[in-house]
């Protein structure tokens, strides 16, 4: 390094450094709505881009997505940011989290007519609106596994050389879903079940996207996802290679919801978005981008692939209140079992 560089003026360089480090201010639009959601929702192949275009066409506003790893991470982020959360709408929590989310005091009643909503168990809430639902399932690669597990029990007790990628229940709603699923089926023996399943787990990812990515790249022959996931491969890739395993004990249900933040900078716009969320324009995008079932009956037919999917005979679901009371204890139980 030439010796000239040592004659630098420290303050000038510090200033330059700080200036470079401060991200450029965002361009301003007339009205602006920020929606906190999970990563896969805003991915280029996810619903985000289409929904953004459709909503911006009718609101003359700028819709901004902020994606975090997964649904539970959303709640963590809200708890951390508190009133400083710079968003109007939070989209991507599920019914397991709504009691806890309400307890933060950060949400307010949406005040929107939700009569059109049709989800299993007729979930209705004055703060959170469902936008889609689905059942969790173990999705497997039929080229790597000839006989997939036919029950949760077989998954837990099966060959530990056949690996599965799961998500962390502390950050991810599918991860939390599996935890609740096992709790529902095994009850007090859940910890023992996890200790056994542990050897089959290749890795625990913070979010669904990463887990599914590892699965499709061939790192593991199984992944925790949804009964609807194979539809993506049938429609977009025209292959039956990836299938969901039907489990005898039934499948845990996930109803995904969105809510309005009390501190929303533009509440009217936020409400407009929530109304839009239940409209055909939004709902028709969901099945073939988020690969979940719409929360409102859609006029267009679903692709044929959806008829070939596993239809769970039994839906399993805890009351939000029960999850809120036990989530921490059950996650500690999971941590304990998984760290043995």
């Amino acid at each position: 390094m030439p010796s000239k560089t040592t004659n630098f003026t420290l303050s000038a360089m510090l200033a330059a450094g700080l200036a470079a480090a401060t991200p450029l201010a965002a361009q301003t639009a007339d009205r602006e709505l920020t929606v906190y959601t999970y990563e896969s929702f805003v991915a280029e192949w996810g619903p985000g881009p289409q929904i953004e275009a459709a909503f911006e066409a009718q609101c003359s506003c700028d819709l901004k997505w902020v994606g975090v790893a997964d649904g539970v991470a959303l709640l963590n982020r809200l708890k951390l940011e508190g009133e400083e959360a710079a968003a109007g709408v939070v989209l991507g929590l599920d019914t397991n989290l709504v009691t806890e989310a309400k307890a933060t005091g950060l949400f307010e009643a949406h005040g929107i007519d939700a009569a059109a909503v049709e989800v299993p168990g007729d979930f209705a809430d004055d703060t959170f609106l469902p936008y889609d639902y689905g059942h969790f399932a173990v999705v497997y690669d039929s080229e790597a596994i000839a006989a997939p597990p036919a029950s949760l029990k077989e998954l837990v007790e099966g060959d530990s050389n056949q690996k599965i990628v799961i998500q962390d229940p502390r950050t991810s709603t599918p991860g939390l879903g599996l935890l609740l699923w096992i709790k529902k089926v095994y009850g007090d023996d859940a910890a023992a079940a996890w200790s056994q399943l542990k050897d089959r787990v290749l890795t625990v990812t913070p979010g669904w996207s990463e887990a599914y990515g590892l699965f499709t790249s061939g790192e593991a022959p199984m992944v925790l996802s949804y009964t609807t996931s194979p539809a993506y491969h049938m429609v977009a890739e025209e292959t039956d290679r990836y299938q969901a395993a039907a489990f005898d004990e039934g499948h845990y249900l996930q109803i995904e919801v969105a809510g309005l933040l009390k501190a929303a900078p533009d509440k009217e716009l936020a409400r407009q978005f929530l109304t839009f969320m239940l409209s055909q324009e939004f709902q028709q995008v969901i099945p073939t981008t988020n690969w979940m079932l719409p929360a409102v009956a859609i006029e267009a037919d679903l692709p044929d692939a959806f008829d070939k999917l596993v239809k769970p005979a039994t839906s399993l679901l805890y009351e939000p209140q029960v999850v809120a009371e036990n989530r921490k204890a059950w996650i500690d139980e999971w941590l304990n079992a998984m760290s043995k």
Partner: protein
Amino acid sequence: MSSLLTRAESRAAVLGGVIAIAAISVAIAVPVTALLWRGTTGEAPDLGFDSYLLRVTRFTLLQAVLSTLLSVALAIPLARALARRPSFPGRVWLLRLFAVPLGLPPLVAALGLLTIWGRQGAVNDLLTGLTGGEPFSIYGLSGILLAHVFFNLPLTARLLLLGLERLPQEYWKNAAILGLGQWTTFRHVEWPAMLQPALAAASLVFMLCITSFTLVLVLGGGPAATTLEVAVYQALRFDFDPSRAVFLAVIQIALTIAALALLRLTGGRDDVSELMVTGQARPDVHGRAAGLVDMTVILVAALFVLSPLLATLVAGLSADLPRLLTEAALWRAGLTSLGVALCAALLSLLLALLLIRARLQMPGLGAQRTKHGLDALAGAAGSLVLMVPPIVLGAGWFLLFRGARGSILLPLILIIIINAMMALPFVMRVLEGAYRTAMSRNGQLALALGVTGLSRIRRIDLPALARPLGAAFAFAMALSLGDLGAIALFGNDRLVTLPYLLLQKMGSYRTADAAGMALILATLCIGLMMLADRSVSRQRSGTQKNPQKNKGRMP
């Protein structure tokens, strides 16, 4: 050393030292106090959680001990083979290659290792092809050990090689004349020469592994393979459970203090950069079979270190780099990273210079007691930095400012402080020796010429130190550029650095993008490291007209 500063300069140096010590103490004591305060006032963690805490602590120790044992055990034959083969073609390059992991961002290394050792990687392909068995999994303890060996084997081998090459040439001549066998030479000559550096390296590696964050986060694969650092991060960002984070952080500090004590005990202060690139002639080494064994060892080690780097290069080049380079997000993250690294490196250099200057101005001012006190304090400030690993430091600030969410400037400043602290021990190491030499060479002259104060610093001290300063600066920047710890705690959608963006791309399964970004980040860091390496070696060859020879040091 007699005083080479004027009275006024001494006073200024002391003042500067006091300021630096105060700044470092504040940067570290404040977050630690915040942690402890939170720990005593917050609710105690649930009892059911104790066993998890115990297991995380146990695993942290286990992986660190195993990583250390593996790194040192494998480095012994490697260093020996390298010492026995002093002049094969490419030896100089190989030793340079061994310096690369030191500055490589852990996240990039983890990606490279996954490409080679993952289920779909070359090694598994080869093994399943040969044996037809199940592919092995890189996730968990095996992956962590692999990554730690990747980072620490080259470092340890360099330290051991240094030990061997410090031996006077006569040792090898005598061994040849006496016709000592390989084993006898090892037992009576090589091993004694490697023992001390091996202990020093072991404690250094243990220290590095016990605070390992990124590698464990990416390759750990779940709660069974979680270290304290990762658990602290998860307690804050996953659970938002401050009391749990505090307990974990306190255990982490206790472990680091123990490791630090070990490091001091074994005198782990060897300077790898002093490694001579051309080895000594080895008249004692002969025989074809022995040569084959040596070269195989060297070749395997070279492949082990080179393959993840090559994988990063190949995967990165096959990414859509032109498109990636037009992405605003990448440029924003890149500028943020460079800005942070620039500030952190400057801050680190400034603190280090102030500390060194204060420590080295020996007699000439005030009572002896003050000076000893100051010297000890400056030393303690350096240790303080090592005691509190970046994630723990970050956790303290995080709790103090509730995640520092409100503004963008506050988390930026915190990340800069944490990165500067991280780099400080390394910067001190590079600068202290150089400063001492420069002082003894120019001090009398400056006094005689009457060049004092700022003009002396500007005209004499800084130019003399230009190269080591450049080296320390480049190294500190590389460290900061590759850091994921601080940004993992404070990062958000508005505050993104290159490693953070890379982690996001990995998470959202944009592997091609991730590979391209890994290449960009690796190029930046390795480029800086090479700059640092070159300025150090040029400094040495430029100033040492009579390179120290081992002649005349006959035992």
